[in-house]
């Protein structure tokens, strides 16, 4: 269980995190969304104990992060946005160092290195110095580093950003496997399709504030529901007044002759909406039911 309470982080006079709250249950894959500069990486750096914060509290398994840094770091794996290595080492040398640093059982280090290099598919380049790796290869190696000591909490900051399509699929498959191992994954990304695929719960962060935190299932029910897109000719005023009086219509957005009708009960709307249109003597140019996506929610949340 990871709990973040009223977390505030300042860089100089700039408040980057303005008191954010959320909690993540064990074994959850938590998607952390937000536009560039929202504060995703900053949050991750705080949660992994790498930078301090000004106010609030972070609890991991009920332990205060500030007071139990050493103990908690043993349970955390972090793949930062831009992983940095000692470039003159090769991957096995670096992983061996990580093994020592995380106090991994001495005798099992070699086995673990082979296992991980296999997992992230870097077995062909074990002799090459990491400084000569491509960005995607560095990201793969970063995953191996993050996973080294079997962490219970895994923080992945845009883990698929430099990967080729195959690498991206592999990474997502892996995250799904981790779910079965009861590992809690905290995943920040811009790629909404990835979130929809693997996440159980999402948060949208914007300008240092959490705009929404929701279980994916509930999100699908609550937000991910159809919108009725209508294109009509004629006077719109009357019908808009009518819509605002109907309790099954949540919201109507107008753009020229385009109407987007958000409804609370899509099943009912399928029957009622054509009736309403017919009542107003309007020309119906097109009538489409659009499935709202996470992308729409994202755009809506970060616009406000």
């Amino acid at each position, binding site marked *: 269980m990871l709990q973040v309470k009223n977390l505030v982080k300042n860089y100089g006079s700039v408040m980057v995190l303005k008191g954010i709250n959320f909690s993540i249950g064990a074994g959850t894959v938590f998607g952390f969304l937000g536009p560039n500069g929202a504060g995703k990486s900053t949050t991750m750096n705080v949660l992994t104990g*790498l930078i301090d914060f000004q106010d609030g509290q972070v609890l991991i398994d009920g332990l205060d992060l500030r007071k139990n840094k050493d103990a908690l770091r043993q349970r955390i794996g972090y793949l930062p946005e831009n992983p940095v290595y000692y470039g003159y080492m090769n991957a096995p040398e670096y992983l061996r160092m990580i093994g020592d640093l995380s106090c991994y059982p001495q005798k099992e280090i070699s086995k673990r290195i082979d296992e991980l290099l296999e997992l992230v598919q870097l077995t062909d380049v074990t002799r090459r110095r990491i400084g000569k790796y491509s960005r995607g290869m560095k990201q793969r190696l970063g995953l191996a580093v993050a996973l080294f000591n079997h962490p219970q909490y895994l923080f992945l900051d845009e883990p698929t950003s430099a990967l080729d399509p195959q690498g991206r699929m592999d990474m997502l498959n892996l995250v799904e496997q981790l779910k079965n191992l009861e590992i809690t994954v905290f995943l920040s990304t811009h790629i909404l399709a990835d979130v929809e695929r693997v996440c159980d719960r999402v948060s949208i962060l914007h300008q240092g504030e959490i705009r929404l935190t929701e279980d994916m299932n509930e999100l699908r029910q609550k937000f991910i529901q159809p919108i009725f897109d209508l294109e009509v000719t004629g006077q719109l005023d009357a019908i808009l007044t009518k819509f605002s009086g109907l309790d099954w219509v949540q919201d109507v957005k107008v753009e020229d002759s385009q109407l987007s009708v958000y409804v609370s009960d899509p099943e009912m709307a399928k029957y009622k909406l054509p009736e309403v249109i017919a009542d107003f003597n309007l020309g119906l140019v097109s009538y489409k039911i659009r499935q709202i996506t996470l992308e729409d929610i994202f755009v809506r949340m970060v616009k406000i």
Partner: protein
Amino acid sequence: MRTFKAYFKKEIIESWRQYRYLVLAVGFIFFAIADPLMLKILPTILKNQIPAEMMQFMQFDPVQAVANYMKDIYQLGNLFVILSLMGIISDEIGQEKLVFPYSKGSKSEGIVLAKSIHYSLTLLFLILVGFILNTYYVNLLFEGVIVGYADTLRSGLLFAIYYIFTISLLLLFSSFTRKGLVAGMIVLLFNYIEPVLYNIKGLADWLPYNLVRQANMLGDLNMSIAWKSILTTLLYAIILQALTIWRMKRVEVI
């Protein structure tokens, strides 16, 4: 201490692959040989350019030749050590190299001590080799009272302790900046100021630079004075390294 072991190994790999051993070895060993040779050739080169009566000042004995080597490795050695070690911690912080190690729970004591002990041992070894070679060469090249290996090795030891202090100073300043050059400049400045401070009465005994002066005594060294210098300098080194560890526990690595 697994962090210590990991970082000690890392420093060996790094020093080897980044040619740091080579640079440091040249700093201490090349001059151990080249220095007496230059002194020897100097009069021959200058023969036609300076008056004959000046020539007698160009005749050195082994003791003077060793003193000349010590003067050079005080200046050049410091420069070489500072040039190659100024980024000793600041590079790690500035380039975010510590993100993975810290996220794995590495101990800052281990990191700082691994670095200080690794480079202290490296310099101790190179300085002793340098002094042995230098002793051999000065005795071979110059006429006069022979310099004993025991005397020069003892001086070498004092030098090594002086450099342990320089390393500790570099560690501390380097941990407070993200640019190695800044740390390097501060330590270099300190090195220039120290001989000036040395002239202030009562202060001399307490300065690490006193070790360099003591080393210059060779056979005439008074061990009781030397011991005081050794102990105070080592004490400074311990304090500096403790401060570095304290700093490294708080530093933000990203």
